[in-house]
């Protein structure tokens, strides 16, 4: 609260027509760094009264007072001590010749111009001396208090020297970050295993490592009045669709929010379809996937504090793709994708069809299975839809609990959930075995596409509800509704169901069926990239593209 008040005061100070009260404050809290160290420290402490903002005071060899202001836990103290405090404490900032010049200047020079010149010379000497002593790669000067406060809060340190009307920002940031490990949501048996972490700079470096081209650009903006979160739009210049990039950047600049804890906030705030249950953005935790998507002509949005990077435009078929598909043979990749596609259909529709088969259309099941089910459900007290509803609810509760529960309790949860609840519910005659098998199978199938779990889960509930009330016709009606919704939903210039609708035959090569790398020599047409070619093989004599089509020299 007080920080905000102080910042407000600072803002008011910039206004020449500030009121009397503000002017009083001005005497204590200035908006630029002065030559007086004590005054500067008071001003900073006024703006940053928090306990974790520490000040380390020391003196140089000639007893000039110095201070380092930093946020505790965010700086490398050893580095500050070794490269800043120790060398400066041995430094004599006022050598005799300078002292002499100054003294002579004070005695002899009667005109103010000469005095000013000497003063500026002295100041320049002081700054140069400090910069030479502190051999720090990231050292910059700041005079505005507002900027300095931002730097301190960002994890940098402020070096103040008595007599110097500038603050030296020392980039000794050392924010605790976790190691670059394989992301749990996107595990690959073959292929790179690095994953993004919460630190945006590390994520940028991971991406830069894979795309060593000057075309890789990061356009950053800070969002969040309180969090001041760095959000960076990354793209390959000349490859991405400029319209999409500009649309995203414009929308980002329009965001006025207190805090951005995760990239999902950005996804929600930028979403063109606000109430859609389908994704508006692709997400990835792996730099190799992001690099591939940028190469296709997409743009990425990195958010500081989030390991999940957003990509746009997003197509639903992206969910079928896995990084591993590109490291195995196209035949295997096609089989995997078909498997995922069928699995997701089973996950969404199987419980619904099971219920509607029991209630409305027994012919959907083979006769033998019908008899088995009939014998299982004969003495059940619940209707098929209510039974399925309960089993599905049980699955969702178990899933939710197993994510939140500590690891050690997780084992007992599995025992209680799977054995006690499942087994005894069947023995007691509350639930039937087929219902449990169907829900378990559906649950497993849904996890073949991790990015579709949330949407798939909602769809499964909706289809179950309509199947219990209207039967298979309800399922078909709802499916038609969602299909029509998807074909008319465009996000960032791309329809979600493309390349199936609208049909883009060229882009069908990397959907359910995965073509070989030679067939994917052109970038997806849906991405509207100016630079169309991404592969040209001259050694096998195949002409893969018309070079005239490419507007940039680098392909």
């Amino acid at each position, binding site marked *: 609260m007080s920080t905000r008040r102080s910042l407000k005061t600072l803002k008011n100070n910039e206004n020449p027509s500030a009121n009397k009260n503000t002017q009083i404050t001005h005497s204590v809290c200035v908006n630029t760094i002065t030559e007086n160290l004590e005054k500067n420290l008071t001003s900073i402490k006024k703006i940053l009264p928090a306990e974790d903002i520490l000040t380390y005071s020391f003196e140089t060899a000639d007893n000039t007072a110095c201070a380092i202001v930093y946020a505790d836990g965010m700086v490398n103290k050893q580095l500050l001590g070794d490269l800043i405090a120790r060398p400066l404490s041995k430094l004599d900032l006022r050598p005799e010749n300078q002292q002499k010049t100054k003294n002579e200047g004070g005695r002899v020079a009667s005109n103010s111009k000469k005095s000013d010149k000497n003063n500026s010379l002295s100041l320049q000497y002081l700054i140069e001396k400090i910069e030479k002593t502190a051999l720090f790669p990231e050292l910059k000067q700041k005079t505005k208090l507002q900027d300095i406060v931002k730097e301190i809060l960002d994890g940098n340190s402020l070096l103040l020297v008595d007599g110097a009307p500038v603050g030296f920002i020392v980039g000794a940031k050392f924010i605790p970050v976790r190691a670059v490990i394989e992301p749990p949501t996107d595990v690959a048996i073959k292929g790179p295993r690095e994953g993004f972490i919460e630190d945006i700079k590390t994520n940028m470096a991971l991406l830069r490592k894979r795309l060593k081209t000057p075309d890789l650009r990061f356009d950053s903006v800070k969002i969040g009045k309180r969090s001041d979160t760095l959000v960076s739009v990354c793209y390959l210049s000349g490859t991405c669709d400029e319209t999409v990039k500009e649309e995203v950047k414009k929308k980002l600049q329009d965001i006025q929010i207190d805090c951005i804890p995760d990239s999902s906030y950005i996804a929600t705030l930028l979403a063109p379809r606000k109430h859609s249950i389908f994704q508006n953005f692709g997400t990835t935790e792996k730099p190799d996937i992001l690099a591939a998507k940028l190469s296709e002509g997409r743009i990425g949005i990195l958010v500081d504090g989030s390991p999940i990077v957003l990509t746009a435009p997003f197509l639903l078929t992206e969910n079928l793709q896995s990084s591993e598909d590109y490291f195995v043979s196209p035949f295997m990749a096609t089989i995997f994708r078909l498997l995922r596609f069928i699995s997701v259909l089973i996950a969404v529709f199987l419980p619904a069809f099971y219920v509607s088969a029991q209630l*409305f*259309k*027994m*012919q*959907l*099941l*083979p*006769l033998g*299975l019908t008899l088995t089910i009939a014998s299982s459900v004969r003495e059940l007290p619940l209707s098929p839809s209510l039974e399925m509803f309960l089993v599905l609810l049980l699955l969702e509760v178990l899933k939710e609990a197993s994510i939140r529960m500590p690891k050690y309790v997780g084992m007992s949860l599995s025992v209680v959930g799977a054995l006690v609840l499942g087994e005894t519910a069947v023995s007691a005659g509350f639930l039937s075995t087929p219902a449990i098998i169907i829900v378990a199978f559906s649950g497993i199938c849904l996890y073949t596409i991790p990015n579709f779990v949330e949407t798939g889960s909602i769809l499964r509930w909706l289809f179950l509800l309509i199947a219990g009330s*209207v*039967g*298979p*016709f*309800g*399922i*078909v*009606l709802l*499916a*038609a*509704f969602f*299909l*029509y*919704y998807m*074909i*008319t939903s465009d996000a960032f210039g791309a*329809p979600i*169901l*493309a*390349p*199936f*609708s*609208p*049909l*883009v035959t060229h882009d069908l090569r990397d959907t359910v069926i995965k073509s070989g790398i030679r067939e994917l020599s052109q970038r997806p*047409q*849906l991405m*509207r990239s100016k630079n169309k070619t991404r592969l040209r093989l001259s050694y096998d004599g195949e002409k893969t593209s018309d070079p005239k089509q490419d507007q940039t020299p680098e392909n």
Partner: protein
Amino acid sequence: MKTALSTPLPRNERVHGRQIAFAAAFLLPISKFLEVPSLLAQYAAGDLLVPALLHFLLQSLVLAALLYAATRSETPLIERLHNALGKWTIAVYIFFGIYFLYAAVIPLLDLDKFVYAAFFDTEPTFFSFGLFFLLSAFICTKGLKAVGRSADLCLFLFVIPFLALIVMSLWETDFSHLLPLFGTKFGDTMSAFTYTTPQFSDAVLLLPLISCSSVDKKDAKKIMTGYWIGALCVLTFLAVFFGTYSSLAPREHYAFAKIAQYFPALAVVGRIDLIFIYLLTVVLLFYTCLPLQYATDLFARTLKTNRRTWIAAALSLLGFLFFLFANHFYNSLYAFIAGIPLIFWLIADLIPLLCLLLPANDKKNKPSSSPNSSNANVPFKRKKENDYA
């Protein structure tokens, strides 16, 4: 307010030639799989392909005329109509809006009975079908561009299930039942032709799509080919249908839902053919909404608004209420509409030919007059690159 008349063709309503061709090939044939085969078999018996073929020839002529009219100029038909008639275009909109509502009745009746035959073992409540009108209300809020995209989707939703069903049906099909050719009296064949006119008069269903697009000769060829692919699908189905049911065919209403059930493997795995039928039902739902969608679009143009939601809701509610009443008079209503084929011949086949009279006032590179279009100064010309509509 955004005016429809001042913006005869917003740029975002453009439909691709390919999409019209797909609509002709994969969206229109579905209506002929329901009651049509038994009706044709009832009058024409083994010659049921003849009246169907006559219908297709007639409709091809209408379609060819429409395409000729459209290809005469780069300016879309609807803009030319607007230029020719001015304020009186509203009359055309209202006339065709009402016609499309009328034309929607038979597909709705067909869908209703088909749903009860294919989806339920027992008689469901009326409200089970009533939910369809919620879907239609939603679909009607979408413009013609959505029709184009749904046609694209129908390529996948139609081709795979149709082929699967035909392959499964061939198991019990004996094509010799179709012999001798021309064994039925000419009068009976013509009766079959007459009574199935409502279902076959569908060239007019492509008119709104054609009139909103800048159709060139290449597109025209595609559309005509698409129409004949659809026709071929229907003729194949009719042949398989009569080959399977033979003399029982006239009594096999909505046989489409059960034609593949004799496939031997189904005894082991269950009625997996129903999965294909359900997929085709999605296409059928899109088709049934099509006239309502056109009517909504035309009424929106008449009322000079781009907000279709209320019109879509009103038309769907009207449809629901009508059905609440018509459900009890299904046979009479069906017979009444099918008994006056003249309306279809006149409105669906003859009146659209007046498009040929529209002057080909080709104003090449003329800037669009659309004030609400994002590309107001872009000429209405088909963008070749990255134009996937």
